[in-house]
């Protein structure tokens, strides 16, 4: 009896692990097949580059969100944060033209400003959560409202537009390619690799996982819980500022409708990728796939008129649920016990 049962848990773990790892990848491949069947232009080079570039914003933000969520937190403020950073960047760049002209110096000042703001906003979220002892959900719900209304205020309710002179200098950051891949995609790849190394190969990554699984135990194990948690929010802020730096040159404008619902898309990408919402387990690779899946759904819906426009939300919701079910559902295990 003991002999027959013993190997089973190992086998079980192997299959569940496979499904967990491959779930998002399978979902993405399925989506691509569907897209190709609906319209072969889906796999054209132009569309693939569009898809990857478009995923970069949510993808980069979602890499940061993976750390926050793995450590048991949540950040709802990222979309509004991106909007307010974009707004301030535009204001700063427009105002430095007189001193520095419309060259690279002005763009660099804008980018520097973006990074400082991102780090600062993340730090504020982190400190309020840890030192202020307020639930992350409430803190970031608050800052979400604050950031959103600040951008509306800066724009006087309208739209902030980047000066056309700077636009010409800054435009290549979004539109140019390097070795066949658009620059935003390169930034995305770099952020993804850095995030992967940080989460899987450093003490910081292990601490995040430990805190997310059990904060009290982590504290007893001499992990500086507050400091690590604050750092996850600072990282998230940095990711938001990077995403903003590549977002601004696209249309050169920011308004109160910039980045609306990005927080939910980022969180969805993280969860589709296999990270556990309550913390303790995170996967950067999955997050990347999650971001790609979300963008692909929207893209495919634009490629077909089979489904009514009014049902776009339904399709997105269904695919998200199925993608998560593929990796969470008990169906793999049940099959095994029946055997």
């Amino acid at each position, binding site marked *: 009896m003991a002999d027959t049962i013993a190997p089973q848990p190992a086998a079980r773990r192997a299959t569940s692990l496979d499904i967990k790892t491959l779930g998002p990848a399978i979902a993405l491949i399925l989506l691509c097949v569907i897209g190709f069947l609906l319209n072969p232009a889906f796999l054209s080079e132009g*569309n693939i580059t*569009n898809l990857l570039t478009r995923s970069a914003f949510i993808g980069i933000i979602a890499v940061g969100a993976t750390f926050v969520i793995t450590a048991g937190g949540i950040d709802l403020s990222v979309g509004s944060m991106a909007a307010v950073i974009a707004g301030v960047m535009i204001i700063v760049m427009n105002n430095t033209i007189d001193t520095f002209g419309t060259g690279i110096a002005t763009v660099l000042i804008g980018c520097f400003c973006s990074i400082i703001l991102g780090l600062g906003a993340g730090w504020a979220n982190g400190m309020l959560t840890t030192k202020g002892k307020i639930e992350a959900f409430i803190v970031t719900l608050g800052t979400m409202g604050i950031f959103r209304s600040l951008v509306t205020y800066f*724009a006087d*309710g309208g739209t902030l537009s980047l000066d056309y002179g700077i636009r010409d200098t800054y435009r290549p950051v979004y539109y140019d390619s390097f070795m066949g891949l658009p620059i935003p995609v390169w930034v995305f790849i770099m952020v993804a690799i850095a995030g992967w190394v940080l989460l899987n190969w450093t003490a910081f990554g292990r601490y995040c996982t430990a805190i997310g699984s059990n904060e009290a135990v982590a504290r007893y194990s001499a992990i500086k819980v507050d400091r690590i948690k604050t750092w996850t929010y600072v990282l998230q802020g940095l990711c938001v500022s990077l995403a903003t730096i590549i977002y601004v040159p696209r249309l050169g404008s920011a308004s*109160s409708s910039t980045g609306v619902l990005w927080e939910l898309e980022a969180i969805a990408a993280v969860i589709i990728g296999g990270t556990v919402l309550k913390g303790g387990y995170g996967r950067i690779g999955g997050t990347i796939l999650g971001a790609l899946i979300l963008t692909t759904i929207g893209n495919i819906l634009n490629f077909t008129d089979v489904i009514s426009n009014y049902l*776009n939300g339904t399709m997105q919701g269904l695919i998200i649920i199925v993608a998560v079910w593929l990796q969470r559902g008990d169906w793999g295990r049940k099959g095994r016990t029946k055997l």
Partner: protein
Amino acid sequence: MRGRIALMALALGGALGLAGAAVAQEKIKIGVSYPTPTHAWAAGMNWHAENAEKRLEALYPDIDLILVNSPDPGAQASALEDLVSVHQIDALVVLPFESEPLTDPVLNVKKSGALITVVDRGLSQPGIEDIYVAGNNPELGRVSAVYMKSRLKEGDNIVVLRGIPTLIDNERFDAFMAEIEGSGINVLDHKHANWNRDDGFDVMQDFLSRFPDIDAVWAQDDDIAIGVVAALKQAGRDGDGMFVVGGAGMKETIKGIMDGNELVPVDVLYPPAMIATAMDVTVAAFKSNGPVAGRYILGATLITPENAEQFYFPDSPF
């Protein structure tokens, strides 16, 4: 002694009170209530309302316009109550946040005896308002289609980017399609871009990947049009007589038309300045010798290089 002083004070107070009431009665108070501007079009409306206030109050010293904006329907309902109880308004100009929840509050203002002017969004019960001022959504769609027909020939292809799925969007879209029908122009597909630049960019990118031959784009809205233009330029498909028709009357778009932009050669008006029209008409109800009650549906004017200047407000945020 003490009693006499008290009496005097009372008399004085009474006289002052009476004088105050007399002054208040002389001034005609008009409340103007609309949603807090959270997007460019509404910000433009706010700007035009403030300008109209300055202009009308300078013109008629006995007119007092009270501008109030509210962040949600509930707040707007409270603001209407305050306008009646605190300011005792003689007339109300209101752009309702939503029709349903504000119908009763506006009805209550009417019961206080005030003249009611409703702007842009109708109430859900007919007959409450004395004056109605609104843009013309179906006409916006029709005028856009007429322009498309004037530029395109049979067999040409267009794509349509729509707004947020709402009644306004349906009215514009249905009227556009009705006018296009029978012209031989193919509408390849239509997708919602939510009156948003980013969505306009994404949807247009996908249309460009999907359809190799597009001759023109109806973007319905100036914000969407900005995203569309960026996508066209990225794909290098902004030449060969390609053109984009937006709508609303954003100052940057109108400036482009004045400068002879070929990619966005015209615009169709759906003006945020309609609030100013409503304020003018309401003041006229007290000042003019002609009757003013009725429905004012503004034209969806086609803005071309010839007439663009009269719709250009460089200081407005929209």
